[in-house]
């Protein structure tokens, strides 16, 4: 049976969502997306370049008809800015599935949960289906879900830090309490971090910098694809218990 997951009524096979920022070129970005197997990419909403309108566009390289574009609100520090950005995104793309992030400060890029919750409520009223970047707080996660968030996306470490999953206990608590998909958004630095997130029972992982800033982003994209898949399989398989002391793998009976 296929191991798929659903968000806002859509079914996906890949549990890896990748960003489209920080790449050296559109070609490299497109190759990394292909290698990652991702079916969803995050995109930002920005002013068009009026002084040079002939510039190539992201949509020329990554086709929004085959890859689901998830518009984000990166760079927004208030609910109002985030909502305004997503209204434009909905008009540009024509879909309701969006990624909400309302940042609290530039130094840590931690989310401002008061503004995030406020924005979630308004967006849901307007028919949006927001996947929401949040702190690793099981209560805040529950409040977002009650407000209508279609997915909960706690950080594993600060955005762009590559520190790996620093908060396994709280991520697991969120997974256990959630009735909507939980995806680690931010903090993954290398393949084993993605596996850790999946072994905790997350439905998926979202990453950008870990792939884009790798020396070879296309190879790292493939590593991440495999890491997400193996972490997921390990979670489904159910890991062995941990012991304090050794337990021999060969039988003790019949020793000469």
């Amino acid at each position, binding site marked *: 049976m296929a191991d798929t997951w659903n968000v806002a009524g859509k079914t996906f096979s890949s549990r890896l969502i990748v960003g489209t920022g*920080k790449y050296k070129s559109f070609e490299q970005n497109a190759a990394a997306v292909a290698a990652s197997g991702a079916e969803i990419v995050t995109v930002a909403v*920005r*002013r068009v370049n*009026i002084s040079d309108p002939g510039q190539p566009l992201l949509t020329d390289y990554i086709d929004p008809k085959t890859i689901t574009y998830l518009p984000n609100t990166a760079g927004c520090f208030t609910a109002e800015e985030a909502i305004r950005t997503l209204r434009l995104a909905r008009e540009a793309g*024509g879909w309701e599935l969006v990624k909400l992030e309302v940042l609290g400060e530039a130094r840590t890029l931690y989310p401002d949960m008061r503004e995030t919750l406020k924005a979630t409520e308004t967006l849901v009223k307007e028919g949006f289906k927001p996947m929401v970047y949040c702190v690793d707080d099981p209560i805040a996660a529950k409040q977002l879900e009650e407000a209508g968030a279609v997915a909960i996306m706690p950080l594993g470490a600060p955005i762009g830090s590559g520190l790996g999953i620093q908060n396994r206990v709280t991520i697991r608590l969120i997974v256990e309490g959630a009735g909507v998909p939980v995806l680690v958004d931010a903090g993954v630095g290398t393949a084993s971090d993605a596996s850790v997130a999946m072994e905790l029972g997350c439905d998926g992982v979202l990453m950008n910098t870990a792939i884009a800033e790798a020396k070879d982003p296309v190879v790292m994209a493939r590593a991440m694809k495999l890491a997400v898949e193996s972490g997921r399989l390990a979670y489904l398989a159910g890991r062995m218990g941990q012991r304090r002391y050794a337990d021999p793998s060969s039988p003790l009976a019949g020793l000469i």
Partner: protein
Amino acid sequence: MQETVSIRVNGSHRRVPAGISVADLALELGLEPAKVAVERNLEIVPRSALAEVIVEDGDDYEIVTFVGGG
């Protein structure tokens, strides 16, 4: 001489011919209307209405598109 109106687009001042639609404005800027979203005086102009809404003197536009981001 052709009559013009004064507007702002993405924060920059511009003069455009009077009576053109928002879709015309996009084309005049070298943009494909189907690939952008337009906000006029803080209100979204639905894509279906781009050809009907007329650019007025003093309008403030934000025209955006999708770019790479995390």
